């Protein structure tokens, strides 16, 4: 260790050496494929979308490698490693080196992806503004993580705000978007000046984030009272201010549910609240909106809980949301409860979390729409809807879609239970990876459909085996039902669950799937193949296999953990 810079670099490398060697290999592979197989014909367009998806995933991974935090006992999912404060290194450098490495890595990754994957497809990416944009995003991310060591709810809230900000800013650099949006807002000047202003802003964010982190780290290192304590403490106390429970619990299940709810129940509503705040307040302040924008934002408000549920569901699956450990907390394992009671408590807490979230979203959407939405524009769209779905059908469809959204949220929240409760890191990361890949894949599909208007035809030409899709889905449904049957029957034999609980759970979800199927039937009465596909997808939605397998894995984890 010749210098602190080298030591920090080595630490980052060593901690994630597996990922950091695999990532470039993966990128090289994609680049190779783009150069050879996907170069011509129908594949090229699709390959572009896929490359975007790979870029997004690689960026997420890089953020994860370089964020340079370590968990603490008393709370917060990671802050600056406290042990480094004892080193004879000035705080400014302690803050600067990880940021420098991180931003360098992000920039290099972007340029490398561009050169490897997009240039062979004759779609080179713009260079300057995305680099600045990503760099500023990374420094903001790191600054938020470092600056609020024990205030985990505040951190979550700010990260959600920041993520939303980042997610939408890039739209200002797309030519067709920016002109339309600026016209909406009544801005008279030229788009170029706005873009230049944003570039300067991004460039300034880096040093500003570094400066802020430096101050906060200095405060942590020397125990100096922080200036922003008031505001942060209020948010934190709001999140944790709940009256102490003084009555007795009616049963062990009630106690387990209360514990799960208090521990993890507020996370999804809080994250969604952050997203809603970021969506509603600026759009309300910016003046009258068009019908298109209103519809778009309403759609986003409905999608956000589902998306966030998928992300937060990864942490929800862990025995303890805030710690990176996967082992069973001994506090729970020592209680005389069966695996079934614990899993059902988690399911119930997830259900309450989702209900609260959707209730909040519904009220916010209604209030916002009344205050800021464009009735005229919506009317036009609704008139279109009347043509497709006469009578009361469109309201029924809307209601079913909302219910479907709620079900999807719940499903995503509990989907990772089997992996998280198993205690096996490999399975957990693999499961996370698959979910992330699916989400990014859907994102890629959206981008791709946005790019190509004749996508149905291209899709059909692209995949000669799209005819096999129903068969694949059928297979998945059968596998799911078989796994569910095996897992639940085994759990029932071992005495982990009662027959009534299982029957009730299954009945509820079969009803839910039936509602989704009904929605599909109403939505596409004239295209039977699409409707059937959607029916199969509806059959895949209910989390029947997941919790069943979770029971097995948890009881195995309970009795087979490592020292």
């Amino acid at each position, binding site marked *: 260790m010749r210098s602190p810079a080298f030591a920090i670099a080595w630490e980052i490398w060593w901690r994630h050496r597996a990922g950091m060697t695999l990532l470039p290999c993966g990128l090289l592979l994609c680049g190779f494929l783009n150069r050879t197989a996907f170069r011509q014909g129908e594949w090229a367009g699709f390959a572009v979308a896929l490359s975007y998806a790979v870029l997004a995933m690689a960026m997420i991974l890089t953020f994860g490698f370089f964020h340079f935090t370590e968990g603490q006992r008393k709370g917060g999912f990671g802050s600056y490693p406290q042990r480094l404060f004892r080193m004879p290194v000035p705080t400014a450098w302690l803050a600067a080196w990880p940021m420098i490495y991180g931003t360098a890595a992000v920039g290099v990754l972007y340029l490398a992806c561009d050169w490897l994957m997009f240039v062979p497809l004759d779609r080179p990416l713009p260079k300057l503004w995305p680099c600045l944009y990503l760099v500023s995003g990374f420094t903001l991310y790191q600054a938020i993580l470092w600056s609020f060591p024990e205030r985990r709810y505040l951190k979550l809230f700010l990260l959600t705000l920041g993520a939303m900000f980042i997610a939408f800013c890039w739209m200002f650099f797309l030519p067709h978007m920016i002109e339309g949006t600026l016209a909406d807002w009544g801005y008279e000047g030229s788009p170029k000046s706005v873009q230049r202003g944003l570039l300067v802003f991004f460039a300034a964010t880096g040093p500003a984030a570094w400066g802020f982190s430096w101050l906060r780290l200095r405060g942590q290192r020397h125990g100096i009272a922080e200036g922003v304590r008031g505001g942060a403490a209020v948010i934190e106390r709001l999140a944790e201010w709940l009256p102490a*429970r003084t009555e007795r619990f009616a049963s*062990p299940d009630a106690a387990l549910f209360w514990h799960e709810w208090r521990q993890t129940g507020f996370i999804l509503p809080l994250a969604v609240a952050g997203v809603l705040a970021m969506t509603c307040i600026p759009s309300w302040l910016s003046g009258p909106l068009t019908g298109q924008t209103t519809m778009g934002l309403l759609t986003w408000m409905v999608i956000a809980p589902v998306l966030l549920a998928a992300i937060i569901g990864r942490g929800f699956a862990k025995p303890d949301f805030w710690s990176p450990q996967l082992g069973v907390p001994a506090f729970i394992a020592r209680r005389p409860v069966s695996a079934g009671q614990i899993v059902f408590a988690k399911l119930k807490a997830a259900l309450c979390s989702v209900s609260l979230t959707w209730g909040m979203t519904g009220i916010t959407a209604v209030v916002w729409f009344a205050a800021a939405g464009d009735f005229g524009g919506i009317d036009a769209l609704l008139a279109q809807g009347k043509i497709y779905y006469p009578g009361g059908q469109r309201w029924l469809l809307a209601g079913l879609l909302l219910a479907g959204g709620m079900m999807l949220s719940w499903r995503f929240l509990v989907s990772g239970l089997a992996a998280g409760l198993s205690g096996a890191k490999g399975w957990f990361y693999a499961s996370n990876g698959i979910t992330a890949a699916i989400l990014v894949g859907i994102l890629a599909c959206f981008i791709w459909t946005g790019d190509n208007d004749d996508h149905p035809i291209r899709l059909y030409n692209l995949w000669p085996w799209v005819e096999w899709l129903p068969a694949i889905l059928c297979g998945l449904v059968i596998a799911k039902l078989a796994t569910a049957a095996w897992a639940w029957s085994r759990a029932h034999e071992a005495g982990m669950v009662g027959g009534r609980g299982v029957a009730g759970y299954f009945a509820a979800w079969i009803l839910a799937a039936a509602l989704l199927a009904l929605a599909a039937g109403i939505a596409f009465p004239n295209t039977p193949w699409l409707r059937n596909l959607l029916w199969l997808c509806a059959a895949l939605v209910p989390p029947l296999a997941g919790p069943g397998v979770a029971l097995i894995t948890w009881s195995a984890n309970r009795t087979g953990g490592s020292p």
Partner: protein
Amino acid sequence: MKFPSPSSADAVIAVTELVRHFGRRTALDSVSLYVPRGCVLGLVGQNGAGKTTLIKHLLGGLRAESGTVRVFGRDPTVDPVGVLGRIGCLSEQRDLPGWMRVGELMRHTQAFYPSWDEEYAARLLQDFQLDPGQKIKTLSQGQLAKTGLLVALAYRPELLILDEPSSGLDPVVRRDILEAIIRMVSEEGRTVLFSSHLLDEVERVADQIVMLHQGRMVLNGRTDDVRRGHISAVLAFDDPLSAAPAVPGAHAVAGSGREWRILFGGTRPELEAAALSLKACVVEERTPSLDEILVARAGGKGG
């Protein structure tokens, strides 16, 4: 006081030939243990000797690779609900959730154990001087240990398992904890198993001592017998020795020249016989402390 026999039907804990490996490391090597009702068993040994692993087996946290583990006659991994309802335990990690208040933790624990005694819990709360409205993450180490002990004792479990109850605590808190444990021991039929590094605590409280060393049980007997079964003696030889003599039956040999101090496991006549066989005489002898016995048996220099 009745004492254990392997087939004792009264055994609250019955471990037979328990083996456990973690990778290539042997954590437990054919450990057998029987704890009858009403016994206080002290588990001692170095860090990493296997104490926590053994305790995890008793709580159903690990499944036996080979051998059997029975608590109250049942396998804790097969029937966790039945077994754990009768056990109170304090883990070394003190892994109570930080956001809960002390009172909430008590209510939460009460929901799982129908035998929770409200009055006893209130009395313990007062004796331990804990504030029910205080959040667990703001408690000091000592208060944390006391809270953990409170919720383990309050439902009057038949078996109390404590993993290093006094580790890292100041003497005042240690006294309080020891007193609470003794008070519980005075009641009928309560069995206690605790592991500790503080040997004077073990000697005060334990009826039976078990020592684990590198996964094997090297000592198992009544507390009094353990001490009286060892002698710390000084052997004087006629000629100075250049290397430590191999004394049969000694667990540790140290010294130089003509006098060597040994820790001998056996009776006085055996010691004299051993000294005679080496042509040495015993010039000093006393009963060793538990500390010396355990260090000697763990370190094993010579013999």
